[in-house]
């Protein structure tokens, strides 16, 4: 009896997942980095060595030193502190926009897959239209219409994350709809709502989670690009892309002003992607 319990415990989906995930070293490192980053963002005021907004014209463009480990920017502000505060913005924008996009996309995807017919056609053709635009171009167009600002960047990024989620979920829904257990539930008289959200939705979640994680990296880079173009965060907000834009004229004169924010973007996006890769390896039943 005892032995039997032990065996079932070993085989819970989560333990299988954890076991597989632990095998991927890079994904583990990425995970640790992301946890650290989140902690830094949450406790920014405690971690940052200086006030990220305090200008000091006297120490403009100072190279890295003990006082300012990443140097100072054009107005003498501490770059490290600005990057630390900037992590709040990047993470918030990345997470919120993907979350909103996923919420809307998943709902649409289930509806589309479950009901089929005209609704399916409408949702999928609209997605096709959105797919036809390169992501960043669509985001630029949306921000150009709504006006610059971080909130509008979130709207833009959510909007172009939506169709992919819709499509992924629609695919799984189509498959699950025909599966035996759903048919069983139908014959037991489950309502459509119950079928969709209790029986089908959980089955689609693993692929949603993978894409969600990968997408955060893309969203962070899109938000930074929009800020770089002056369409996102407005000064003096310490947004990474905006910091790059401010200092790109000084490449070759004060390189540290671009290297550090650039590295912050690069590492964050890289680690989110590695983490997503790890998740895929662990969650996808096709990769054993």
């Amino acid at each position, binding site marked *: 009896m005892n032995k039997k319990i032990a065996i079932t415990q070993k085989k819970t989906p989560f333990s299988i997942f954890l076991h597989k995930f632990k095998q991927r070293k890079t994904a583990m490192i990425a995970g640790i980095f992301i946890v650290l980053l989140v902690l830094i963002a949450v406790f920014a005021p405690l971690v940052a060595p200086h006030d990220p907004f305090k200008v000091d014209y006297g120490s403009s463009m100072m190279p890295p030193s003990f006082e300012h480990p990443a140097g100072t920017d054009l*107005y003498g502000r501490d770059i490290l502190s600005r990057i630390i505060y900037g992590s709040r913005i990047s993470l918030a924008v990345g997470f919120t926009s993907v979350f909103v996009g996923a919420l809307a996309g998943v709902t649409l995807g289930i509806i589309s897959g479950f009901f089929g017919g005209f609704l399916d056609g409408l949702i999928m053709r609209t997605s096709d239209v959105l797919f036809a635009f390169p992501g960043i171009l669509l985001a630029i167009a949306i921000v150009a219409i709504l006006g*610059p600002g971080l909130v509008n960047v979130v709207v833009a990024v959510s909007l172009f994350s939506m169709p992919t989620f819709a499509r992924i979920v629609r695919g799984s829904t189509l498959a699950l709809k025909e599966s035996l257990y759903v048919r069983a539930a139908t014959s037991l008289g489950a309502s459509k709502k119950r079928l969709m959200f209790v029986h089908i939705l959980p089955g689609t979640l693993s692929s949603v989670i993978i894409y969600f994680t990968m997408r955060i990296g893309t969203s962070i880079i899109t938000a930074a690009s929009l800020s770089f173009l002056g369409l996102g965060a*407005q*000064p*003096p907000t310490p947004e990474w892309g905006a910091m790059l834009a401010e200092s790109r*004229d000084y490449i070759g*004169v004060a390189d540290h002003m671009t290297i550090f924010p650039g590295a912050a973007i690069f590492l964050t996006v890289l680690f989110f992607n590695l983490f997503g890769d790890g998740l895929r390896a662990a969650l996808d039943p096709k990769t054993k």
Partner: protein
Amino acid sequence: MKRVILTLLALTLLAAPGYAGTKDIIYASESTAKSLDPHDTSDTYSGAIERAICQGLMGFDKDMNIIPLLAESYTFNDAATEFIFKLRQGIKFHDGTLFNANAVKVNIDRMMTGKYKRSSLMKPVESCQVIDDYTVRFSLKEPFGAFVNAIAHPGSLILSPKSLETYGDEVSKHPVGTGPYIFDEWVSGDHVRIKKNPDYWKGKVNVDSITFRPVPESGSRLAMLRAGQAHYIFPMPAEMIKVAENDPKLDIIKQPSIIERYLIMNTRYKPFADVRVRQAVNYALDKDSIIKIAWGGAAAEADSIIPSNLQFYKKQAAWPLDIEKAKALMKEAGYEKGFEVVFLTPNASNRLRATEMAQQQLAKIGITGKIESMDVASFYNKLEGQKKDDANPIPFIGFGGWSASTGDADWGTRPLISTDAFPPAMSNFGFFSDKKVDDFITAGLASASPDARKKAYADLQDYVWKQAPWGYLFVDTLMAAKVKNLKGIYPMPDGAFLVEDAELTD
């Protein structure tokens, strides 16, 4: 093998004399030529290229002093309503047509049709009459003391009447003038090439051709110059001045401009309607730091409402940085706690930097707000779209700049601070309106006598400086860079350039 060597030798012999003999200059610039029809050009860059091909009755030297070119001399009446120009004789256009009074009339009449971008220069003109072959008279509708400046402006260059007949408005692609260079080729969106005029009336031209090549990205422009792919670049990016200074092959040219930069405040409405608030802004601005950091040092603090290179400029006492005094003025005006504004700026990086610094500095006296940056066209659309009587005006501070391209005090003040210049008519974007200012400006145009005009503009500058319609910032210093063996290309204070004396030594 022998054959190869012979071929090489032959090639060298063929190529060598050609190489040593031609002197071709490449001028790399931020801008792209938009038209080569002087009467229908509104940008400084195209105007400067036209000036190498065509000439006007009067022109500017490199310091923006007015000099006679196709005219020998001129006279005017006391009321400044009649100007008579004596023309130079024996000058031919590039197509062989003789330059005479009739050629002048054809050009002026063309401008007076009102169809062209520079028609406004001839707006005061009632008629242009040919008195004899080498004398023309301009009769004006009303006194316009700055008329000679309008004649010297690159918009008033004289084209060959024959070319106007042949090409019509297509002359913008085939400009024919009397200048030191003949138009050679214009690849639209790319380069313009002009070549030496062998029969130039002033004498020998020293280079064979000049190619004007647009290179919008400032880093590549400097890289081209350093690699020897360009001989002259403008503007030299101020951020990279250290790189250029360390290169022994290069020279940096600095020239005070006539481009004044200032913060526009909407003075028609509270809180900027109160002169004390505007003065507080001027006391709170750290001009020195803005010049150093935002503008890379390529500017000088403004010391009058017009730049020092304009005619009739009078120096004023600078506004010192004095936060305490600024706070006291804000308190007096009833804004001890400050107020919110919107900072508007074009999104060019240096303008954005300057606005950001103004935002940092004005926060110290309680003036706070967000920055809205946009492309230049949207920025001016926004300013021009303001209404004179707005029920809900938004207090804004906008980053303004003005190049008075006629070189005269009139064009540096009237379009910016007179009551008649409210947008959309002209560029008084802060709706500044003051009876005294309007009177001084009218007085400045009522006569062509330099003494009377000087007096009017001196009074104007003394008075308006303290009225602080703007947050005064600085006057740009133009920076160009060139290879050491190039001589004789001069940047002009309005951002144009003179290439007539260009010379390339070995």
